[in-house]
C-alpha cells in the first residue's frame, strides 16, 4: 500500500509585489499503484504542488499524507525526477543510480544487483561506467528515472521529466515509462504540459486552472492497458484530447488576460 494524499493545500509566496497565491486549496489522492497526471497552463503552480508533495517546501495551509500519515519532511518515500535531469556529474551512471541505496547503507552486492537490473531496463547497457557528460538528453533522463526507482520510493513524483526532449525521444521515453510502470506498479504523480503525454500515460488527469492554481477538472482515462503507439491514433484518445484541449485553452486564455490586466 502506498498512497499519497494532498489535503486542502494552499501555497502563498511573499514577493516584492505583495503576496502571490500559487496554489489555492488543492486536494487530491493518488491511490496505490495509480498513475496520475497533472496538466495546466504555464505558471499555474504544478511544480509548486510537486515540491509540496515531496516535502521540499512546506505549504502555507493543508498537509500531505503518505499512507495516511502527515509528512512535512522530504524523504526516500517520495522520489523525485526533475526536468533538468540533475544527475551528479562526478559520479558514473552506476554510482548515480546507486546513490539512494548507498545512503540507506544497502550492501554493495545488493546495490549492484539493483543497478544492473535498472541499467538494463532503462537501456543504458554499456554506459554503466560512463560519466553523465557523455549521455544524450534521453539517456540522462533514463538514468535519472533509474536513480529514482533505485531508491524504491512509495510514490514517484515527476516534474515535466520529458519536457526538454525532442518529440521522437519523448515518445520513446513515454513508452518505456509505461513499460516500467506496468512492471513496478509505483504510485506516480506526473506533471506535464503535454496533453497527449498525460492521456497516454495516465489513469487519471487533473486539469489545473491558471493562477491561483486549483483543480478544475478530473478526467479518468479509460483507455485499456497496455498502451502502445497505436493508442495514439485510437478514437477514444482523440476524444479525450479534445476534451482536455478545450479546458486548457480556456484556462490559458484566462492566464494571458489576467497578465495583461496586471500589466
Amino acid at each position: 500500500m502506498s498512497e499519497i494524499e494532498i489535503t486542502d493545500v494552499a501555497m502563498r509566496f511573499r514577493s516584492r509585489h505583495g503576496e502571490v497565491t500559487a496554489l489555492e486549496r488543492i486536494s487530491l489522492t493518488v491511490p496505490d499503484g495509480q498513475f496520475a497526471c497533472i496538466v495546466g497552463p504555464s505558471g499555474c503552480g504544478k511544480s509548486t504542488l510537486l515540491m509540496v508533495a515531496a516535502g521540499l517546501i512546506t505549504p502555507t495551509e493543508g498537509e500531505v499524507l503518505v499512507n495516511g500519515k502527515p509528512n512535512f519532511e522530504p524523504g526516500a518515500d517520495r522520489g523525485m525526477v526533475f526536468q533538468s535531469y540533475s544527475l551528479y556529474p562526478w559520479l558514473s551512471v552506476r554510482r548515480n543510480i546507486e546513490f539512494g541505496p548507498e545512503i540507506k547503507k544497502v550492501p554493495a552486492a545488493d546495490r549492484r544487483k539493483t543497478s544492473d537490473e535498472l541499467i538494463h531496463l532503462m537501456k543504458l547497457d554499456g554506459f554503466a561506467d560512463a560519466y553523465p557528460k557523455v549521455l544524450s538528453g534521453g539517456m540522462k533522463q533514463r538514468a535519472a528515472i533509474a536513480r529514482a526507482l533505485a531508491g524504491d520510493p512509495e510514490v514517484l513524483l515527476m516534474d515535466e521529466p520529458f519536457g526538454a526532449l525532442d518529440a521522437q525521444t519523448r515518445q520513446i521515453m513515454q513508452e518505456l515509462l509505461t513499460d516500467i510502470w506496468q512492471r513496478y506498479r509505483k504510485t506516480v504523480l506526473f506533471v506535464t504540459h503535454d496533453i497527449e503525454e498525460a492521456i497516454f500515460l495516465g489513469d487519471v488527469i487533473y486539469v489545473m486552472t491558471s493562477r491561483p492554481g486549483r483543480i478544475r477538472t478530473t478526467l479518468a482515462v479509460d483507455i485499456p492497458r497496455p498502451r502502445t503507439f497505436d493508442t495514439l491514433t485510437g478514437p477514444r484518445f482523440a476524444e479525450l484530447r479534445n476534451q482536455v484541449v478545450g479546458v486548457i485553452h480556456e484556462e490559458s486564455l484566462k492566464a494571458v488576460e489576467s497578465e495583461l490586466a496586471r500589466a
Partner: protein
Amino acid sequence: MSRVPAARVAPAPSAVTPLRRRGFIRTYLTPKQAIPGRARLILAIGSFVFVIGVWWVLAVLVQNPLFVPSPYQVVLTWWDMMVNLGFYNDVGWSTFRIVAGFLLAAAAAVPLGLLMGSFEAVRSFFNPPINAIRYMPASAFIPLLILLQGLGEDEKITIIWIGVFFQLVLMVMDIAHRVPDEMLNVAYTLGASRWTVFYKVFLPATFPEVVDALRITMGWAWTYLIVAELVAAEHGIGSFILIAERYLRADRIIAAIITIGILGLITDTLFAIAHRLAFPYVEKVRA
C-alpha cells in the same frame, strides 16, 4: 574509472576541428570556430617568436645595452645571476612566501566561502565587511603591517593573505551559491539527511570550480608578493629587482621579471593538469 568507447561522442561544437578543408576565410574568420591543431601550435610558437623578435629589433635600434638589453644578453645575465649572485635563493624565498601566504588564505577562504554560499545566515553576517575590505587594495596595507609586524616573513605572508583571502572567499561563495537546488533536492528525496546532502552533493558539486578559483587567485598572489618585497625585504625576487635598479641593471630586472612569469606559468600549468586529473567528468575545460 574505465571509459566506454562511446565516451568519444562529439564534445561541444566549437571544440571540433573540421577535417575537411574549407578555405582560409571560412576556417579562420568564422567566430568561435575551431582551427586545425597544427595552426594552433604554429600561432602559439609564432607569438613568442614575434615578441622576442620585436624586442631584438628594438635592442638593435636603440643600441644602448644599459636600458634595452637584447634577449641574448638577458639570458646570459640570468645565468650569471643564478651562478654568481645566488638568485635561486631569492626565488626560493619568494616561492616560500607565496606558497605559505596562499595556503593560509585558501585554508580560510574556501571553508568560509562554502559556508557563506550555503547558509544565508553566515552570508548575511560576513558578506558586508568582506565586500568592503575587498575594495581596499592589499598593497595599501603594507605600511601598516610594517608598523605592526616589522619586516619579517609574517608581514609578507600577511599581505598575500589579505590580497588573496578577500577575493577568494567571495568567488567561492558565488560558486557555492550557484549549485543548482535540484541537485540537493534530488538527494533529499533519496533519503539523504542535511549533513549527507552537504558532504555528498554540495561539496563535490563545488570542487572543480573552487580549483579554478584557486588557480586564478594564485596569479594575483604574485603581484602582492612582489609589491611587498619591493617596499622592503632582505631577500626575494622583488628585493633583487630593487637592488638591480640601484645599480642601473635593466638586464637583471628583465631577467627577474621573466623568471616570475615562468614561475607563474608553471603553477598555472600544474593547476590545469591537476584539474584535468581530478575532475575528468567536467564537461567544458577552461583554457
